[in-house]
């Protein structure tokens, strides 16, 4: 990130991200920043620390879409804290401001193909910035390779580094990947061990069948059969409890049956 100087008095000029005008704090001169041909470097800081990121991953493994024993069986084999680079182009296309995001690095990481720039507090990336121990992934795609194919006229362009946690975990012998956005906590995955709805449908189907029989027989034969509806409730509740029961993680110190 280059340092700016006030064109009138030569004092150093603070240029904030996302602004078009800067006022010199010494002489008060207002300067217009022509961002059309320059490349600005920005960084979104981490607002989620390592422990919180691991907690978010654990919460995600316990979610209803994931395999039931994923929380207790998933084994994190790799955990990396990184800044991932993306080019952000703002251009005027047919008189309309349009934002494009393009990868600055080829990757197969989950979520990084969508190329969204996650929500965050945009800071200037320069020598003073603290990366808090995270690796800064250097871009391997030059901005020049995108410029010819973009439509419209430029307003500005920036290289934005955004914070991610890259997690590799194993489950039943297979390795999977997940990415956690270090700014908002969103979890991205491409494939993951999922939970089937079969057991859930079976339990409710059983309770339904008992209720149905109870209803029909209770009306047509003898009201005593309404007991089947109540039996359906208890059967459903008991079996459902087994379906939703969680395996406590081994390190939680709780005996498992």
């Amino acid at each position: 990130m280059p340092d700016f100087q006030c064109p009138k008095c030569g004092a150093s000029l603070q240029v904030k991200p996302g602004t078009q005008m800067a006022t010199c704090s010494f002489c008060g001169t207002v300067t217009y920043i022509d961002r059309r041909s320059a490349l600005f470097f920005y960084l979104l800081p981490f607002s989620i620390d390592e422990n919180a990121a691991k907690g978010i991953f654990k919460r995600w493994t316990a979610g209803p879409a994931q395999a039931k024993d994923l929380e207790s069986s998933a084994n994190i084999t790799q955990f990396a804290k990184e800044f991932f680079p993306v080019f952000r182009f703002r251009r005027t296309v047919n008189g309309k401001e349009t934002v494009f995001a393009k990868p600055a690095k080829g990757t197969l990481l989950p979520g990084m193909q969508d190329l969204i720039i996650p929500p965050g507090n945009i800071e200037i990336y320069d020598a003073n910035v603290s990366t808090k121990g995270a690796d800064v992934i250097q871009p391997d795609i030059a901005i020049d390779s995108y410029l010819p194919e973009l439509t419209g006229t430029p307003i500005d362009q920036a290289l934005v580094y955004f914070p991610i946690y890259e997690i590799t975990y194993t489950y039943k012998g297979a390795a999977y990947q997940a990415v956690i956005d270090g700014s908002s906590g969103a979890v991205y995955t491409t494939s993951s061990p999922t939970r089937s709805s079969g057991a859930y449908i079976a339990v409710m189907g059983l309770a339904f069948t008992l209720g149905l029989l109870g209803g029909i027989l209770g009306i047509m034969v003898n009201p005593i059969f309404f007991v089947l509806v109540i039996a359906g409730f208890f059967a459903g509740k008991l079996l459902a409890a087994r379906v939703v029961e969680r395996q406590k993680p081994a390190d939680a110190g709780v005996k498992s049956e």
Partner: protein
Amino acid sequence: MSEAQKILVSMTCPSCGGQVQCEEGEDLVLCKFCESVFALTTDEGANKVMYKMTIDKDKALAKVRDWWKGGPKAQDLAQTAQVTEAYPMYLPFWRLIARGKACVCGIEEERRGKDNQKVEIPREALINRQYIYSEIACETGDLGIQSIVIPERAEAISYDDQEIVTFGVTSSRDSAYEEGGRAIRQTAVEDGGARMDKVYFSKSFFFPKAFTLVYYPFWIIRYSYEGRTYFATVDGITAHVVSGRAPGNAGSQSTAAGIGGALSGGLAGLGIGLAIVTEGTDVGIGVLVVGIVAAIALLGYFYNRFRYGDEILIGAVNGKGLKSGRTQNKVQPVYNETYDYFK
């Protein structure tokens, strides 16, 4: 002159050459030397408004603790959950205030008389309302906040760089404006056709009044439960919990399965039984239809609570889980400035 200096253009008055003062977002400038007025054609220039945070940390935490107690959340959540982080922040929103007008023509169907004959009544509606559209100006990520309603008592302060974290704008201003206009027109048409069963014609317009970049305060609270990290966001002015995730309650899940299955089965059985006993009379068939419809609705409702009840979601957060509460609509009507006409 270094490369970096080439992109700086000093602002001078085109008539007298004197230095001018202007600020981000302004589109008219008055030269203080020669008093000439000129328009700026910079690419950017949405007006910025920031609202003052009025909720303190303790209040926000108290609200989250109350929220832990409600709904089918883990029973010991309020006792065992630990708040790990609580910090304030500002999120950016595009806000379009516009008058939406729509002309909607259609019919309303009504059943009349003994034989329940269907009658079509022609209806016409002219909608003339003020609407406010708001949309978050960055990706939502896992914040679960898409839109805001600014309360009456909110105090606007001038935008400045404060200690509080302020999320940057990453979406396109023009796209937001276009989408806002489209959403307002669509809402005007929907409001016009609310009572109609069929709409045959509609035309809509919008007249923009103000387009602003709004910075609105929130508290972000992260908490841990059984080693998992969950979160909640609290509106910095109204103190409502607007989005979040919480662990579900296994007991509620299994009860839902039992009640939902047995009750819907019982209702369906009752309907079938009665239909057979009454030998297919109108009353019997009526009971059957009502019973089946109620059974399907109950089954769906309770299945959802059973299958996805492991995690409770509020707001516009992604992923599976049991949604509770409602997500803020992007378009709000301003009721005291309504000049509608219905026929």
